[in-house]
């Protein structure tokens, strides 16, 4: 009887030891998956159905999930070892070699995130509000190719809106053009602090899903706002904000379109060669002067002025152009850093 009890005790001890060993192994190896779901947009529009989304951390790639109704669901990021801890997670559409703008850091702890993914538009991949119909279970994406270059132009998008220059309504007679890559629109002219009928009508669909920028060619300045060209027909209000013009009293008056009525007409009589004057490739910005109050020293008084204007944009009431040291139309951490670099703590 005694040997039997001893054997039972020994068995229990060994089993307990085994449990302890295996549980410690499991604990040491514990990396938990991170699960992502969210919207997917391509070129600003919901992604079509059936695209495969994967996550990558260095050489690790997750299993793919398919987009459906502009979303992806349960993308499980679960790398095999802890070596991927705190490394960057990127998100991809492998079929089109696209990488999402968004990234994350793998923390190895169980978490579930809603994470919207945005991808740039690419030729050959449809990105529109109407998803390509198809069963979500099929892994083969069926992207609808965009029309090739040379197809008839898309219908125009006509912009109008307010124009602000250096925080003030734009003077009359400024010529504004829109550009998409090498395309430049016919001009529109400011009047009463606004512009009308700036028609963006590039000759090819190759300009679709690309950024539209707005310029005052006479001064070589560009508006802070940009917008993706999604084709028309459409009429959109789009307010424009320009920085300070390089020369406040330009000797040559900004070129005006001879007849305002012609400028407002759908087909301006001014030819492209006369209105599209060559503009400098870079925006002229005043040199940064961290001495905001101009007292000859960069000190706490300048810091106070910058702090008072912090987080404002050029169209805000509290915006202080003097504190916008890099003249990008907003007072932010970059201006603060420029101030700090020249800061004189002794004064």
């Amino acid at each position, binding site marked *: 009887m005694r040997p039997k009890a001893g054997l039972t005790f020994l068995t229990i001890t060994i089993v307990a030891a085994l449990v302890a*060993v295996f549980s410690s192994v499991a604990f*040491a190896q514990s990396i938990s998956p991170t699960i992502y779901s969210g919207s997917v947009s391509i070129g600003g529009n919901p992604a079509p159905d059936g695209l495969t989304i994967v996550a990558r951390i260095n050489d690790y790639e997750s299993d793919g999930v398919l987009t459906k109704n502009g979303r992806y669901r349960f993308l499980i990021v679960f790398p095999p070892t802890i070596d991927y801890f705190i490394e*960057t997670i990127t998100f991809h559409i492998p079929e089109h070699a696209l990488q999402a703008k968004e990234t994350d850091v793998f923390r190895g702890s169980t978490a579930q995130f809603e994470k919207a993914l945005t991808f740039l538009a690419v030729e050959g991949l449809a990105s529109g509000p109407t998803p390509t119909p198809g069963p979500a279970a099929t892994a083969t994406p069926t992207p609808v190719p965009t029309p090739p270059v040379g197809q008839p132009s898309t219908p125009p998008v006509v912009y109008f809106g307010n124009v602000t220059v250096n925080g003030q309504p734009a003077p009359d007679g400024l010529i504004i053009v829109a550009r998409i890559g090498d395309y430049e629109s016919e001009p529109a002219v400011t009047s009463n602090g606004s512009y009308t009928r700036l028609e963006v009508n590039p000759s090819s669909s190759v300009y679709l899903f690309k950024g539209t920028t707005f310029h005052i060619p006479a001064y070589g300045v560009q508006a802070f706002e940009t917008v993706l060209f999604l084709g028309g027909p459409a009429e959109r209000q789009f307010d424009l904000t320009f920085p300070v013009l390089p020369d406040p009293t330009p000797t040559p008056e900004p070129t005006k379109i001879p007849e305002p009525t012609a400028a407002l007409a759908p087909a301006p009589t001014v030819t492209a060669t006369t209105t599209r004057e060559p503009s400098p490739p870079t925006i002229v910005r005043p040199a940064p002067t961290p001495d905001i109050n101009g007292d000859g020293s960069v000190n706490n008084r300048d810091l106070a002025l910058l702090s008072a204007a912090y987080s404002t944009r050029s169209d805000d009431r509290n915006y202080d152009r003097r504190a916008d040291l890099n003249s990008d139309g907003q007072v932010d*951490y970059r201006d603060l*850093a420029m101030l*700090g670099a020249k800061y004189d*703590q002794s004064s």
Partner: protein
Amino acid sequence: MTRVLNRLWMLSVVAVLALAAACFGPDETDIAPQPTIPASTLPVNTTVPDSPPTSSHPTVFFWPDEIRTDSNGEAKADVWVNAGSFGISGGEVTLDYSNSGCTVQAFTAGTLLGDHPLVGQGNIDNNGGRALLALARVGATQSPTPSGSFASVTLSCEPNTTVSLPSLGLSALMVDHQFEKVPLTGGSAG
């Protein structure tokens, strides 16, 4: 007697298996760089236990990413910046903790930007659940900047609970020594 011998033989097999499992288990180097002590045994008001993991990319994250509050509900963590190859001359960090059940008691400069960085903005809005800290280095910036704590945050939450810091929305913007925006990853990098 035969039964006893059979049991002894089985026990020997089990013992050999146990020994093998212990010997061929994972090496210590495979274990997470995080502290491996269970959260329940973490000292109260844990601060940064070791140097946080490094990364080749500029990253911003909470360190530690999980903290335990003390009996008063307070706990501290750092907003840590791995600068990668960049020089960091300033930055702005925002916490959005409206749904976290915590409030921010203090949000102060760390050591990343020197001993006395300029504070361009330091707001704590516990009603809105949002805190912002904008800092700049005084003087020249070394590039690359050694990794370090951009800011320290003191939280007030439920006493004696473990707080997962990623639940506090962290977003960050950093500027390099040439006053250009640094392409950050981690948190909600701007």
